[in-house]
């Protein structure tokens, strides 16, 4: 007996969905085993996570608040990913967006109406994130530089720029020597609807925009063609460089917007940790959703719930929060594995002995049925 891997002819939609759901369950099972090995009760832990994230109004509000920047970053990255431009620089683009938004907020006079604050800051954030993504985009388009490492490294650059601003350039003199950037004015804060700052509306608008952009606009269509084959795009008369550079800039601009939402909606003060790891988690969110914008809402909520719930879990059961990172990592792993099982299946091949038996059988059959039968003819 031998195991062989064979390509599947077709994988039905429901089948693929079932495989994906099973993969998440497998990840939860393995995380449970790890927790059990550490001496914790996994069932209680999962219950604590569920209770902490969705169990109360407070928990629900926190979960949605955490999901907002995560969703916006994932949406932004998905535009890069659909061009096969591996933008791992979401963290840096988000920080840059927040830096530009902070700068804009402090340039406006204190008497500026709130709406004008939001619009100016949002635009500034988009310009910041867009320009920052443009750097690796231009290098990739004009000299074929590998964007994965480039965008990754730029994350650390952006974070260090924020540190420099906090310690030196934008250090708030009113903070009595404490190295901190001046908070944005009250008027620039995003108001709350249903207890959550209106970043959730921004996130939903961006979701609709990205879904329509990729599916129904000419530029979105070009984006997908470039992602599939630059050679084909070239043949069809598409200006590959322009599509690539434009797409990456748009991707960065949307990610930058997440920086604004986090700044104006939650932190109110710029610091280097404003990205909060969203740039990395969003890569997983975008992939698990198969770059499908509406599905990203669900995945982002799930991830936020895990993060939010993990805090509840730590309080109630003294299980470290970092367990939720383990779960996230395992979910990504099993998601990757599920992609394999969606397009391939494992066949158990008959061994030589079984084949020999079969040959002998078929040989006997042939001897018995040697009389020619009429061929079926139409």
């Amino acid at each position, binding site marked *: 007996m031998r195991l062989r891997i064979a390509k*599947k*002819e*077709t994988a039905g939609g429901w089948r693929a969905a079932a495989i994906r759901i099973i993969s998440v369950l497998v990840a939860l099972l393995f995380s449970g085993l790890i927790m059990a090995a550490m001496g914790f009760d996994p069932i209680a832990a999962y219950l604590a996570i569920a209770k902490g994230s969705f169990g109360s109004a407070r928990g629900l509000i926190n979960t949605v608040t955490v999901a907002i920047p995560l969703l916006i970053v994932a949406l932004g990255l998905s535009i890069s990913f659909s061009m096969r431009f591996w933008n791992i620089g979401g963290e840096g683009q988000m920080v840059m967006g927040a830096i530009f938004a902070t700068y804009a907020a402090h340039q406006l006079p204190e008497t500026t109406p709130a709406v004008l604050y939001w619009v100016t800051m949002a635009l500034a954030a988009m310009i910041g994130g867009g320009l920052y993504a443009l750097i690796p985009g231009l290098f990739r388009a004009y000299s074929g530089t590998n964007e994965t490492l480039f965008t990754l490294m730029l994350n650390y650059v952006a974070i260090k720029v924020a540190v420099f601003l906090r310690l030196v350039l934008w250090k708030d003199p009113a903070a009595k020597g404490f190295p901190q950037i001046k908070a944005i004015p009250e008027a620039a804060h995003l108001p709350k609807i249903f207890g959550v700052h209106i970043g959730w509306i921004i996130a939903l608008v961006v979701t609709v925009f990205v879904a329509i952009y990729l599916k*129904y*606009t*000419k*530029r979105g*269509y070009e984006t*997908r*063609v470039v992602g*599939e*084959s630059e*050679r*084909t795009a*070239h*043949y*069809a*008369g*598409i*200006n590959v460089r322009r599509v690539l550079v434009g797409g990456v800039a748009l991707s960065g601009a949307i990610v930058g917007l997440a920086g604004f939402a986090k700044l104006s909606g939650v932190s109110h003060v710029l610091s280097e940790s404003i990205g909060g790891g969203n740039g990395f988690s969003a890569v997983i969110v975008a992939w698990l959703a198969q770059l499908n914008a509406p599905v990203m809402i669900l995945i982002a909520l799930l991830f936020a719930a895990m993060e939010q719930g993990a805090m509840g879990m730590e309080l109630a059961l003294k299980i470290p929060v970092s367990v939720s990172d383990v779960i996230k990592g395992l979910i990504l792993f099993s998601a990757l594995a599920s992609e394999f099982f969606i397009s391939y299946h494992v066949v158990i*091949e*008959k061994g*030589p002995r079984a*084949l*020999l038996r*079969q*040959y002998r059988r*078929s*040989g006997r059959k*042939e001897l018995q049925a040697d009389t020619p039968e009429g061929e079926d003819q139409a």
Partner: protein
Amino acid sequence: MTDTKKVPAIAMRGISKAFASVKANQDIGFSVEAGEIHALLGENGSGKSTLMNILSGIYLPDSGEIDIHGERVIFRSPRDSMAKGIGMIHQHFKLVENLTALDNIIAGTGHGLFIDRAAARAKISALSEQFAMGIDPDRRISTMSVSEKQTVEILKVLYRGSQILILDEPTAVLTPQEITHLFQILHRMRQNGQAIVFISHKLNEVLSLCDRVTVLRQGRTIGTVRTDLTTTTELVEMMVGRAVDLSIDRPVVQGSGPCLEIEGLSVLDTSGVHRLNNVGFSLSHGEILGVAGLSGSGQKELCEAIAGLQIPSEGSIRFHGNEIVGKSPREIIKMGISMSFIPEDRLGMGLVASMDIADNILLKDYAFHKGPFIDRKAARTKARQIVSQLAINTPGIFHTVRKLSGGNIQKVILGREINLNPRLLITAYAVRGLDIHSSYTIYSLINEQKQKDVAVLFIGEDLDVLLELCDRILVLCNGEVTGIVRASDVTKEQIGLMMAGESLQEKEVVL
């Protein structure tokens, strides 16, 4: 059991093999004598490659039996098959370019720690002489022509002592002269008692070279016939399942005047080597100009220069009197020049494999839609129209292109280009790897365009087709034009000579 009949070299009986729900081989019988050249014929998807992959140990059959020289065998890997003296010569050569013929031939054959080169060289020289191959064992592969590389592949198999050789479309890449040489080698091997399986789409070759033919259709054996007792018409009927008219039309069209004029066109590659050198020709409306040449003689560069994808170093390309060098590919498409190039993998250029037919039709179309949005409705209508017009075999227009068969993929590309109503249609290798039926559909589509006053530049591989379909033929060799001739005034051999670099100045027809 033993009788007076001699034992066949290959005897395959009742071979069946299914891939998921597709029955690639159903109860196939195939038998080749020693000292016989046996052709295996069939359209795309008839089960030829599956059967040969079973014989060379790549697939295990689901059922059936194989006897090699009378001995029952089960091949579990290509190694098992090789050990029984079966050698396959693939279309794509598997040679190390930087090594000599000798090193390529002996690679992987030694058992001890050291290689006895002198003995190997003597054996190779003897084989080369025996079969009149004329291969110098110490020459590097990189300095060899396609035909010589193929000969090295054959030597490699003979060196391993193969008594059974499978050749997969060996003539597709050769000039007529080289084909004659290959046939001489194969004749000697036949005299020597080797069994040869010859796979080809070219019926004339099959009839002139082979002793018997086995025809497969839809995974079943249709029959085995002797070549001296059959005709091309009969073979085609066996392959397709009904009578097919094999002549290609060459309608006379009174065109509306000149379309494309190219003068002194040169294209350099990135290392500064001339890929096209001082190429000039003209093409009129209602005319098909064929381009013949060995692969890599500059056909691709010519197409890409006209389509605006490569910038020529010198020369001019005028379309209806307007210079188009320097215009962007999209501007050129909008002027009514449509180019389709079928690469070896079929999908790499022209189609987006993971998108459906409708979205692929959109590719050359969306730029003309108004506003920032694409008009999917129009593309769907067009896709349905193209699918029914070209009889594309697909479950629907939302079927992913990757899952279509080769012939249908090519029909989608050609259908899309024709649907743009071009004034100049450039089509390169439109029938690459297609079976007879699909090929003829495509020839008639191209003729239809010609009758619509479209100028057609047809880059082809099969000289017989070029001679029948085209009005004039331009021959390229190493990026230079070695002749432009009327298709009705020239023979295949003359074109072959020009492809090899001989100019036919005195026969050139200047229009």
